[in-house]
């Protein structure tokens, strides 16, 4: 979007509140909600990719060394990755 949502006057909104450009969900940082965060223990990780598959926000990504981690902009701290990991390589810690 051209400017933050709280700066639009009603007259400036598009017909039907259409957002005429694609991919704007990227600008919405769901990571803001996080109150716990996942931490990967690479010694336990077998690189199966389940955390990557199950993350509902597609916040898990594979690094160059093929281990996984999360993108703090979009990880909302739901702990699904931690629950699904078969080797208990992911621990949820308090805080962002």
């Amino acid at each position, binding site marked *: 979007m051209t400017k*933050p*949502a*709280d700066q*639009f*006057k*009603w*007259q400036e*909104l*598009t*017909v*039907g*509140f*259409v*957002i*005429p*450009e*694609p*991919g*704007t969900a990227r600008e919405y940082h769901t990571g803001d909600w996080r109150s716990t965060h996942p931490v990967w223990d690479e010694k336990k990780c077998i690189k199966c990719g389940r955390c990557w598959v199950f993350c509902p926000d597609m916040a898990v990504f594979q690094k160059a060394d093929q281990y996984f981690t999360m993108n703090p902009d979009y990880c909302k701290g739901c702990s699904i990755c931690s629950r699904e990991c078969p080797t208990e390589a992911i621990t949820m810690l308090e805080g962002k």
Partner: protein
Amino acid sequence: MTEPSRKKIGVEVSIAVSEAVKQCDVDVVSAYPITPQTHIVEHLAELVAQGELDAEFVPVESEHSAMSVCAGSVAAGARTFTSTASQGLALMAEIVYCVSAMRLPIVMVVANRSLSSPLSIWNDHSDAMMVRDSGWIQVFVENGQESYDHIFWCFRVAEDEKSLHPVMLNMDGFILTHTIEPIEYWEDEMVKKYLPPFQPKFRLHPEHPLTMGAFGPPEIFTECKKAQDQALIATMPVIEKAWEEMEKICGRKYSAVETYRAEDAKTLLVTMGSFSETARVAIDEMRETGEEIGLVSLRLWRPFPFEKFRNAVKNAENLIVIDRAMVFGGPGGPVASEIRSALYSGKKRPRIVNFIAGLAGRDVQPDDFYQMVQHAKTKIKDGTEDEYEIYGVRE
């Protein structure tokens, strides 16, 4: 210009309505059958199956899906029609609200029927009133010819680039839908002249991705609602123009607020839908006995025609408002309550007497209007006019 065709044919109003939809050359019809709308969508399904109408007929498993299909198809730029009634409208209500805010110009006929329970398939306005605040343009018609004519009007008003709103045509279930009436059809050239092709402002297209129906956090939701309200109010000139142009094409004159023998009338009946036609007969009879009475027929329900309505009743001392729906635990019928708020700020306010009549298809004849007028006089004399009355209830 094509000479208006004057030949009338006797036809069931539902069939005439679906013929009008065909003449509008719709691209998509999606509907779920429900009494008393059934004949409309059945006939459209036949027209598509027989190759007389080049459209997609999407049969769905529920009204919720019907309106969802309509949302998608109109968003892709297709001229789209649906129809429902009562419980069907209740089931689709979620999407009814979505499409108006998204400014998707769907045309829907509601064959007005009461909401359960008790289960009823008969006519009243409780379904329309349930979605009163959904942001649709809502119009009521009095008879078969008006139902037919207004299909063209609905598409024109919906799709106009200055409008882009869904439009709901309310026609009384059975009383209109299942009656055979003499109806004057439009020539196809008249429709072509009246209704330009649909040109959406935004459309879903794989080559031009965009987002429709995005979420609106608290920072922007209020601005969205203000914009939506203003946009609906701003359709008034489009609405009026569509009626003016229709008169030029078919010779029939319609308006947001219509009056009958009202000029010198101290007392005015106020009605919507097919009530209005019966009320005219009653007024003629009462006029013969010297009663100074006239009629205000409210055709446009949303956006509410405040100015026209105030003007139509400015000389009246008494308004007798006849509603066809309940507002449980509320201030009376929905039409009467709106009218009270519309007139409250005026210096000279008429007395407003409110009757609720004709629930679930109970017959309201000219004599019933006469009875209501007499009751109203008594109430005014007794000073009890503020209490609404359910006319004809046994007690």
